């Protein structure tokens, strides 16, 4: 009889339950993605999830480890998160490649779930962005129905587009894509056009950005759907408020201050909040428990770091979107943050 230590009861929480909760929280965003980008979104998401799970099973089998953990939902979650950060126009093989990167380089190389240093989905996205910069910054026009060049709600057309690319349909990417608000503002700024002017020319609307009908990655456009999921996670206590709050507050604060100083160069805070992948990153990526700090103080430091980096890269950097870089960069610092942001232990350094 092995020696077993107390406690002898457990509250019944499990990894699978945690993963399922996060997947559930992503359902609104997934639904929004399918609504906005039609069958293409569905195909990409399904491909990413399936290839992530398959890669995980293959990796585990190849290493001679139990394949049971491939079905705990973590691989599926990685696939889902990755798909949501991708543009809907990506060909199938890039989606698969990204999924393989996410699982192999992002996770299994380090020993599997719980040991990865970087957020697997985001590191795959960074690899894809640097490898295929053009494809990764081409955004489909959302909700384009029969009148448009590519009917997103026609399954046959979408499947052909997904498998064979636009050429097979006799389309050029230019005809069906547009710039994202962030990308538009960045290019205009390099051409010497100020932010307010650029936004006016783009016909930018905060309401559209909030609901999701601006161009962008599949799951990043609808702030509303993401917020519903994020609040669900907070309510279920799967994540704590520290990271999302400090992250968003930092970006908003920086944006507000600099927007006041120079409204021509720096975009307003609401624009930063609703554009790009900020909300997705704040609620689902930066809060990935494995690659974020454990302690509350550490989480706040982490969130602030993500916020500063996101805003800096967006405002000054060569890439229009900085949220994912910011999170991956801060992932590098997590062990140090954990080490130096430990809470004060009971009875140490208190009064007397």
């Amino acid at each position, binding site marked *: 009889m092995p*020696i077993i230590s*107390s406690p002898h009861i457990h509250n019944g929480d*499990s990894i699978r339950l945690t993963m399922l909760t996060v997947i559930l929280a992503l359902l609104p965003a997934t639904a929004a993605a399918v609504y906005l980008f039609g069958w293409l979104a569905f195909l990409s998401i399904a491909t990413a999830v399936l290839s992530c799970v398959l890669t995980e099973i293959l990796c585990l089998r190849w290493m001679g480890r139990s394949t049971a953990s491939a079905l705990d939902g973590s691989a599926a979650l990685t696939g889902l998160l990755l798909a949501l950060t991708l543009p809907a126009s990506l060909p199938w093989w890039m989606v698969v490649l990204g999924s393989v990167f996410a699982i192999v380089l992002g996770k299994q190389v380090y020993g599997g779930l719980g040991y990865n240093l970087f957020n697997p989905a985001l590191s795959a996205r960074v690899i894809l962005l640097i490898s295929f910069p053009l494809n990764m910054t081409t955004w489909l026009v959302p909700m384009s129905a029969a009148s448009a060049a590519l009917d997103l709600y026609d399954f046959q057309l979408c499947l052909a587009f997904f498998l064979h690319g636009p050429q097979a349909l006799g389309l050029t990417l230019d005809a069906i894509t547009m710039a994202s608000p962030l990308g538009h503002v960045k290019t205009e700024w390099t051409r010497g056009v100020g932010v307010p002017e650029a936004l006016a020319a783009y016909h930018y609307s905060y309401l559209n950005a909030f609901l999701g009908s601006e161009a962008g990655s599949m799951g990043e456009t609808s702030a509303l759907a993401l917020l519903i999921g994020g609040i669900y996670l907070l309510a279920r206590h799967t994540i704590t408020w520290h990271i999302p709050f400090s992250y968003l507050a930092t970006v908003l604060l920086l944006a507000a201050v600099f927007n006041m100083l120079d409204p021509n160069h720096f975009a307003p805070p609401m624009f930063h909040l609703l554009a790009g992948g900020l909300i997705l990153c704040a609620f689902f990526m930066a809060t990935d428990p494995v690659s974020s700090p*454990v302690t509350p103080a550490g989480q706040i430091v982490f969130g602030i770091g993500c916020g500063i980096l996101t805003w800096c890269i967006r405002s000054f950097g060569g890439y229009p979107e900085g949220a994912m870089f910011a999170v991956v960069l801060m992932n590098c610092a997590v062990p140090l943050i954990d080490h130096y942001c430990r809470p004060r232990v009971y*009875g140490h350094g208190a009064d007397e």
Partner: protein
Amino acid sequence: MPALLKNLSRKLGMMPFGFHGGVEVDQRKLTASMAIEDCALSPVLILPMKQHIGEACTPLVHVGDYVKRGQKIARAEGYVAAPVHASASGKVVKIEEHRIAHPSGMGLPCIFIEPDGDDASETLEPWEDWAERDPGELRERIRMCGLVGLGGAVFPTFIKLVRDQRHAVETVILNGIECEPYLTTDHRLMLEHADEIVAGLAIIRHMVGAREAVIAIEDNKPDAVETMRRAVVAAGLEDVRVTVMPTRYPQGSEKQLIQAITGREVPAGKLPVHIGVLCQNVGTAQAVFHAVRHGRPLTERVVTVSGEAVPRPGNLRIPFGTPVRFVLAGRGLEDLNDIHIIHGGPMMGERLRNIDVPVVKATNGLLAVPEPQMSSMQSSEQPCIRCGHCSEVCPVMLVPNLLADHCRNDEFTRAEQYQLFDCIECGCCSYVCPSTIPLVHYFRYGKGQLAQIRRSEAFAEESRLRSEAREQRLEREKQAKAARRSRVRKTHAPAEPSDNNATGKEES
């Protein structure tokens, strides 16, 4: 309204309870409404020579001796110790090593008594006039009666009941929290013996000269609160406060309770008395009353026998030394296949590997639970996903997952740096871990290894000093010998053979 708001914000984790972290556990107080019963007398009583924290006792009786209930049968050696008394009258049949309730499964010397059923008892002189007596005298009485903390820590009680000039006790806290699931001993004691507990509190207060006295009870025992309030008034001690605390595990832990009530933390490595607080369990208070007022040594205690696998759960008054097997059989539990027996509560108790061990002063509960309930979470340790729930619930604000990583990988210096020794082993971290990591087990492993390392380091240091001293002595002797030889050579020109070659022998 403010109370409601406070409760809500606490539930949402936005405001701490009186102490950091903690968990809400399923109460499972099956025996809350069952009155305390007397346990039948076992045919043999096994009394271990150590039932407290500290040094073991030395037997005072021999095989064949007749002893009475309450007779001192083992003497305390050293300061931190409590003597052992016979828990029934009868004959000492043997004195030998026997298993005790300890995770190692190892044993201690025990005195075996065969009760004769006469129940002849021996008590000290009852002191009705305790209020006029000197605290030192009362303290000696409590020491003589073998009292230890009955909440589970079994620290000798008399040590805490001291009037210290430098650290005057201002507040006495009577711990009626009983936050562990299943256990209802303190609950029943408060319902049935409220007057004795309050009298015990009065004695304790008289001894340490405390101004303030608080009886702390969790809000899941409203009847106990009511009874205690009435008892306090009946005893004419209106200044004793009966506080109701929100139910939260591990509020019954001394340090956490002190923090919840006074808002102050016991500094690391110090005792509560350093911040002017004395904390005693309600059961201990009752025992203090019996020891002082009736001169009755500690020979029995109330034990909750509970768990889903016990046919007739209940609260039993059991003489020390009664084998657990006998107790369980008395409650209808004979077939022990696929059943786990836990000594203590489910959060901090130990699983018994052998149920022939005796009930001792530390036994506050005996639980029998069907195996699958617990074994499902053991041995299926998943990788840590660093969710941070363990840090959230840790009442001493450790970072349990990182600490366990260090322990698992034998990085003990790191583990110490992460304050391993401040862990109170309450089990909250393991309770909430979604990966079912046995965190407490890792901490115990780390603590054990570190203790061994420290012991061997101390031993190495001693050995080094001894070896150096020896070397120096040899050197001195060599020089002395050389000096003597040269002196001899000078006086007697022709060299004489050296006289003495056993120089090391004066060492004894």
